[in-house]
């Protein structure tokens, strides 16, 4: 299928064709891909960063990076893992900025305050999903990103290692520690 022809009329354009068109500068292809995957990418970024204020910027940067690197797409059925991989890399890089420290400190203060002052939050935390969500949020970002890529996005360890630029052994170690920490946190919070 010719990407240029298929662009305007339908949303049935395959991911590979859309990226091919995007690599040739077709702005419509970027719109198609954004509409298709912004939900998945923003959900991943929100969970991975644990910081709602950054989601917009990271989603924007993800699709811009994808547009620039469109010609590198390997042509697989869905470009979701590829996009999520780009987002994960950006999340990984973003935490290196020194400004993150100040913001993280601010977030921590606000959250701790919320935890002890808002009774609704206390009630909601008893819900099982909420407990898991809270526990996940308390993992370190490096562990959380790896765990989400593996369990939520279903990516194999080798691919995660490639995405994050770390040895596959480190991926295995982080996965193991993330599961262990998560289980400990959940076990500790079981209502008795």
């Amino acid at each position, binding site marked *: 299928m010719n990407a240029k022809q298929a662009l305007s009329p339908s949303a049935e354009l395959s991911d590979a064709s859309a990226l091919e068109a995007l690599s040739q500068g077709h702005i419509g292809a970027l719109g198609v891909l*954004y509409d298709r995957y912004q939900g998945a990418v923003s959900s991943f970024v929100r969970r991975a960063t644990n910081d709602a204020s950054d989601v917009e910027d990271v989603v924007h940067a993800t699709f811009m990076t994808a547009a620039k690197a469109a010609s590198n797409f390997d042509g697989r059925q869905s470009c979701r893992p590829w996009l999520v991989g780009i987002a994960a890399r950006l999340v990984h890089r973003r935490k290196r900025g020194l400004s993150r420290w100040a913001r993280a400190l601010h977030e921590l203060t606000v959250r701790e305050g919320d935890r002890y002052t808002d009774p609704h939050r206390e009630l909601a935390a008893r819900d099982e999903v909420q407990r898991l969500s809270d526990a996940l949020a308390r993992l370190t970002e490096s562990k959380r990103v790896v765990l*989400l890529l593996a369990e939520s996005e279903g990516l194999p360890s080798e691919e995660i290692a490639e995405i994050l630029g770390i*040895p596959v052994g480190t991926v295995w170690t982080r996965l193991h520690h993330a599961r262990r920490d998560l289980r400990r946190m959940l076990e500790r919070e079981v209502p008795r």
Partner: protein
Amino acid sequence: MSAKPCARLWQIEAARDDRLTGKDLASALRHRETCAECTAEAARVSELATGIAQLPAEPLDAITARRVRQRLLTAFNASVLDPAPARAFPRFAGLLACALVGALGVICFWVGRARAPAAPPTSPSPAVEIQASSGARFSDRVEPRLERVEFDDGSAALTVHPHTGRRVLIELPDGEIEDLGTIFQLRVEDGRTQQISVTDGRIAVRLREQPPFSLGAGETWQREAPRLPAVVATSPAITSSATPSRVVQSAHVATHERAHPLSALPSPALPIEARHEGPSADNTNAEDDAYLGIIDSLRGGRGAEARARAKDYLLRFPNGFRRVEVLNIATRGADAGSN
């Protein structure tokens, strides 16, 4: 009192994370079918994964999504229509940087060549840092895809630095350790691994006569020491200078001055026929046969015969490869007899 956890419990996660392949994976899956503990662990890991996958994460609300879309398309449009101002400087800077790096490289090459004409060929830098005790015997070979440390004897503390795309394998006389990014201590004596302590990270250990297992931070594995005094009682030819408690209690990185656990085995006071059969290659089959005979007797429930064969083995092969196990069998027999 809590039961000892299944030694293959770690394989549940390993199988899930593609750490196991081929025969190892098939074996782990077969084991899982029969082990209640592993089945429960698999269910827990799977339940956790399902929970994570099903966690609701709010995507951007419609208005925000629309705003981000608009911003994205505008930015992309700008980059397509007017790429020159954004790219001109980086491209120029890139070329300049390449030229500078190239020039610097050439200068360093010539200076280095002039100063050190006999420089060895470059090879990947080792990921493993080894602090070995005096007398330890080991070698470290670094290849692009694999770093192999052959550790023959002695004790050492090993620190493995991050190693992208390279496996790190520590080969022991009786097995191997695969490192997963870690700091650990190791002690090997007389061709057998005696102790492994992990300070940080996790390692996978595969030893002969042991099911594979992994050790995490703060965990220590130690080989069971033989009970020596009973052998002294059963065989007058065997004299001991080391007490069993010293052997068993030797923890952490040992020094070479320590009493050797096998120093109690016979050597000078042996009968003449015992000295004929040293640990040479010619005796390997005979030694194996003798050992298998002992095992056969044990499995057949013929304890007295096994003990007799064990004593015979120790006399025939004082430096035999299986002497520690055989010593244990003979000792157990002595204990049983004394009871």
